[in-house]
């Protein structure tokens, strides 16, 4: 497995939003899901997860609430809001354009 690459802050936001799309999750769940879905390539710096979640909360893209977890402990679950869904669409679109542009440069130069 290649060394886990560092994530840009904006990318982390995008990944969190996407991960939350199907269902609400708590912080650890999000980090696990990202790690698994990226097949181990992306190892989220877990310390930077929570600041990111806070930022998204303040922006209004996710909403958090305290609930009982699977093991009946109190945990904070985050879900995607309507604005978050819209933002996810926009951010995905700009990510795709970014990747495309980088690919062009790599091919031509």
């Amino acid at each position, binding site marked *: 497995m290649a060394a886990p690459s560092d994530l840009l802050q904006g990318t982390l936001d995008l990944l969190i939003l996407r991960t939350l799309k199907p269902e609400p999750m*708590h*912080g*650890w769940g999000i*980090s*696990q899901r990202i790690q698994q879905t990226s097949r181990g390539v992306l*190892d989220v*710096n*877990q*310390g*930077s997860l*929570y*600041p*990111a979640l*806070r*930022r998204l*909360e*303040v*922006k*209004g893209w996710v*909403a958090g609430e*305290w609930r009982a*977890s699977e093991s009946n*402990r*109190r*945990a*904070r679950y985050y879900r995607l809001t309507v*604005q978050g869904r819209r933002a996810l669409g926009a951010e995905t679109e700009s990510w795709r354009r970014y990747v495309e542009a980088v690919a062009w440069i790599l091919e031509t130069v």
Partner: protein
Amino acid sequence: MPTLNGLLLRLKALFRKSQAEQEMNEEMQHHLALETAHNRELGMTTTDAARKARLDFGGLEAAREAERDARGVRWLEDFVADVRYALRSLRRSPVLAGAAILTLALGIGANTAIFSAVSAVILRPLPFHEPDRLYILWEQNPEKGWYKNIAAPANMLDWKEQVAAFQDVGAWADWRSSATLTGEGRPVVLNSALVTGNLFSALGVRPTVGRAFTPEETWETGTPVVVLSDRIWRNRFKADPAVVGRTLRLDGAAVQVVGVMPSSVGAFPYEGVDIWQPMAWKPDRRSQVSFRRAHWLRVAARLKPGVTPEEADAQLQATVHRLQQDYPATNRVMGAGMTPLHEFLVGDTRQPLLVLLGAVAVLLLIACGNVGNLLLVRAAGMEREVALRLALGAGRGRVVRQALTESLVLSLLGGVAGLAIGWWGTRILILLQPANMLPVHDISLSWMVLAYIFAITLTCAFLFGAAPAVWGARRAPAEALKEGGKSGSSGHRARRWSDVLVVGEVALALLLTVGACLVLRSFWRLTAVDPGFEPKGVLSVLLVLPDARYDSPQKVQAFFTELVRRGRELPGVTMTAGTTSLPLTGLRWTSDFKVDGWGPEQVGFEVGHHEVTPDYFRTMGVPVLRGRAFTPADRDSAPQVVLINQSLAARYFPGEDPIGRRVAFDKVPDSNSVWRTIVGVVQDERQVALSLEPRNEFIAPVAQDGGRGLYLLLKTSGDPASLGPTARDLIAGMDPELGILSMTTMDEIRDRSLARQRFMLTLLGAFSLVGMVLAVVGVYGVMAQLARGRVREMGIRIALGAQAAEVQWLVVRHGLRLVAMGLGIGLSAALLLSRSITALLFQIQPLDPITFVSVPVLLVLSAMAACWLPALRASRASPALALRTD
């Protein structure tokens, strides 16, 4: 995009901080627990699992910090922490904090007071509807030197009717009228203003009770009406709305009250007006020549909506041109113009107030300079602390922010204290101000003033705080942290800032003091002006006899003659006289004239007139230069005589004897003209003001030309004010229904003529004194700092055999160099700017040499003392001690 949720989160982070922290910790602990469990599932031991979980999480504290930052309220928390730190740190150096706050308070306080006045007088909108559509219409006559002059009624009516651009044109009489109210207790004289019926509606003022006048009431309607002011409505009629419709006795006639005006127009057209009365002109006056010849109206016009002032002016000029051709006898060269009403009402006081505003702004800059120096010294002393913080990881930006917050706290404290001082200052301003200079009775701290003060407080904080803050964060930490690192080695940068501040302060103080000195010299010149009469010991009492009971000139004359005679018999009175106009208060009326024997081209223009009783010149100490004064023989039935003053004699009868010549007060005399014989020449009195040259004047006997109003003059060898009660009794004894309009001593009149200059002088003098003191203290402070830093050097030099004076000179030389630079800059600024206060000066040039020499000398002497003292003290320290000093 900020959402309600986001806002709630921020608020929660701010106010429920402990709860937010707790939740954050709980969440992170939960995460670690799950990660540990996951690791154990992968086969690690408990300890290893926990350890790996922690490692993978990254720095826990760093994560906590990052999350706190992400909450979005970090800057506010930092700010609050900085403020608390600043307060603590200021408490630790109370002397410095006290000095800084006091200095700032003085500067900001002065600014508060003056800006309040400026805001109340210049910036406050007029109490009329859409005041920017209102203009004053004035007349001008180049032949007579009239400009922005009062208008003749017939002209005003023609402008109203013929200029389509004016929606309405109203007018008021240029003088203060009066009416005696009887039947409501003691007879009292009310200040009245005569207005046209449509004036209030043209200005857009609505009465609080009842109605204003109707346009028809400009002309005689048969029912005399009156409108009350808010003040008299409250004071005399207990704010009873039923007063509308009541009949009052004014000047013996029954007058109906039709309305009450709001307090906002209580100062229109002059401060203290009690009632407004309509013109009530007789309709046949409209076509009379006198209606177009006598000028006594102030005219206000409202533009129609959508009309520009230029269009209106063009139409006005067209109408004026027509009038010039239609009425050549009166209007041949009579022009007209418009000025915005606001400018007209305020213009007189604008310049002095703006000069004062400039002066206090300069004062504040000097104060900021001093505080800046204080903070620089402090920053130098706090080097170690700052270095420690930098070494511990504080960003430079954070350190600068903290220093700026401290300046802000200092500035706000100074600002609050300054507000208090400023409020108190406005009370003083109102007390000190010459009558009617500031046409407001109350200068309060309005929102605009508070906003202005807040703005300058912030600016000050930045001005004096930026340099120390930025400088403080520039030190390389290692150097300052070294043991034995000299705290006095503040480095060249700090000293250079101090130097700049000192130079600036000296320059500004010079500017301020030059201004004050010019005004001072002006004032001295003014007090030395000879008014032309002797004011000492003379009391004047103004009476106006009402139409109703004194309906013939004979009755009026009989009363006044008897009054003067009885006045002479009062205890303590040495002489009495009467006059229709007091010197230093203005001209009674003006006219042109023609001398018998002059050719058709020769005409006398714009001469003043007033009337006196025979003993006037003796009572007022005015010498009769040629011929004779009046005698009781100059009665109405006797040949008409007149006196001229010295100026008129010099201007119109140079080298000849005017005695015996006959004059008529018409430009073109006809069969109706009255010819008067000149019987004497008297010395000039200054009729209008001490600062204005005497006008050419004719003086006629009251018996032949007097009117209903007279100033009774009583001369005593003691205090004239003590004659007041006896004078009142005398008049009440002669006619109990008669009210006294005013009672003043001639000394007071003369003082009033000086009042404006004295006011400016007092204020500017006070500001410049404070400014100079602050600047000198600033120089002293910087020099003391400098001297302290060179104590070791001085000790070495003295130990090596140098004289104390030589050593002192090293320090003083530096100081003097700074002062010289400051003087240079200040002088150049003063040379450039002094022209702007020419209007305030009397007989003094803006570049007055005495001022421009004595003020710098004064400043240099004080600054030299401020430089020498610290150097002296520093060199006095014993060399051994100095060498050991750190």
